[in-house]
């Protein structure tokens, strides 16, 4: 049973937001959400690699691993694919697209261990998505990542100027702020009957 692509997109973007509801990709979330500029760069890199990784792993899983009964190599193959993809993208950008490289380049090495990418590729297989829905899901998840991380960076820029007690400053207040933002996202529950 394939879901309607529109539902897949909104589900990935809002209802089950990858950062706030699925808890994937939290390390870069708290790591680079200090400033809107870095947050934008990071989310661009994540979106780009997420889409590429989804295509490669989806094809690899459905064309090679599943027919050969090699499902048990899934974890190893997927992470290696993502690691080499990141390397490849980095080299390609460095050579051909200097402008893009200078804005995304420094975030690329961090992406290999970003569980959002690997998580999305696993979920695409677990949900049994076809290639269209997998693409939409990756797109929605990537945009959802970007949306939240940029929103959150704006909040943290303000927090930096706020008078916060010493034991709460830094990570704790960021967690509390994330709690409030995710409370807001909880309001999307059941939006348009989306529920995957």
């Amino acid at each position, binding site marked *: 049973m394939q*879901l309607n692509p529109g539902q897949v997109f909104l589900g990935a973007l809002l209802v*089950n937001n990858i950062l706030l509801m699925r808890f994937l990709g939290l390390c870069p979330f708290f790591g680079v959400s200090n400033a809107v500029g870095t947050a934008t760069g990071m989310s661009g890199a994540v979106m780009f690699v997420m889409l590429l990784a989804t295509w490669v792993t989806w094809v690899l899983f459905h064309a090679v691993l599943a027919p050969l009964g090699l499902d*048990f*190599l899934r974890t*190893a193959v997927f992470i290696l694919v993502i690691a080499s993809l990141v390397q490849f993208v980095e080299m390609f950008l460095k050579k051909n697209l200097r402008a893009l490289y200078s804005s995304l380049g420094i975030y690329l090495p961090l992406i290999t261990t970003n569980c959002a990418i690997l998580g999305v590729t696993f979920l695409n297989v677990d949900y049994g998505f076809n290639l269209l829905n997998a693409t939409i899901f990756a797109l929605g998840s990537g945009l959802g990542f970007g949306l939240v991380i940029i929103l959150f960076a704006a909040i943290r820029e303000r927090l930096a100027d706020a008078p916060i007690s010493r034991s709460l400053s830094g990570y704790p207040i960021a967690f509390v702020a994330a709690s409030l933002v995710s409370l807001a996202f909880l309001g999307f*529950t*059941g939006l348009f009957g989306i*529920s*995957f």
Partner: protein
Amino acid sequence: MSATTPQWVQGRFWMVASLVIVCLVAAFSLARVYNATRPVIEQQRIEATNRALAEVLPRATRFEEQVPDTLWYGFDGADEQVGSVIKVSPRGYAGPIEALAGIGQDGRITGIYITSLKETPGLGLKATEPRFRDRFLNRTPEELRLVQDGGSIDAISAATITSRAIADGIREGIESLRHRLPIGAGKSDPPDELDFSDPARPDQP
């Protein structure tokens, strides 16, 4: 590295060879683990299904799979059919829910069982508790809607979506398989059943 590292380790040949060796060892050990655990996983799944079947159609002692993984007929000790079990997988709040529903020969629910759900932990899990499952007992398929949707199932508080998914999923599942369910010798009359059942629910054997 340390002083004991041999020179050839950093060479080009070993670079390729070591990767190949690591990959082979990894793939080999994974294949071993996979082959060792697969029967256990399969066994777990079968046992879980059998437990669930017995739970939703307690009178049956033997089940026959009619449609693989979707429809079972249940028979009692005298080999008489006492009901059917259907499996439905409606979409819940956070993922697909898998549920089994037992239907007696009179078309009433004999039990439901949630086999897997990825709902909000804790909340959705309440759907697996008897307190929720008992709300389905003895209902006719037509009654399987939430109270706020005009049916007779009380939703779990704060888990309306999960409750609705289960109620609607089972009702729709029964409707789509109606032709395969030997309910009331295939000539059930929904309006009559509704009138009959509402004032006082007859006891289920």
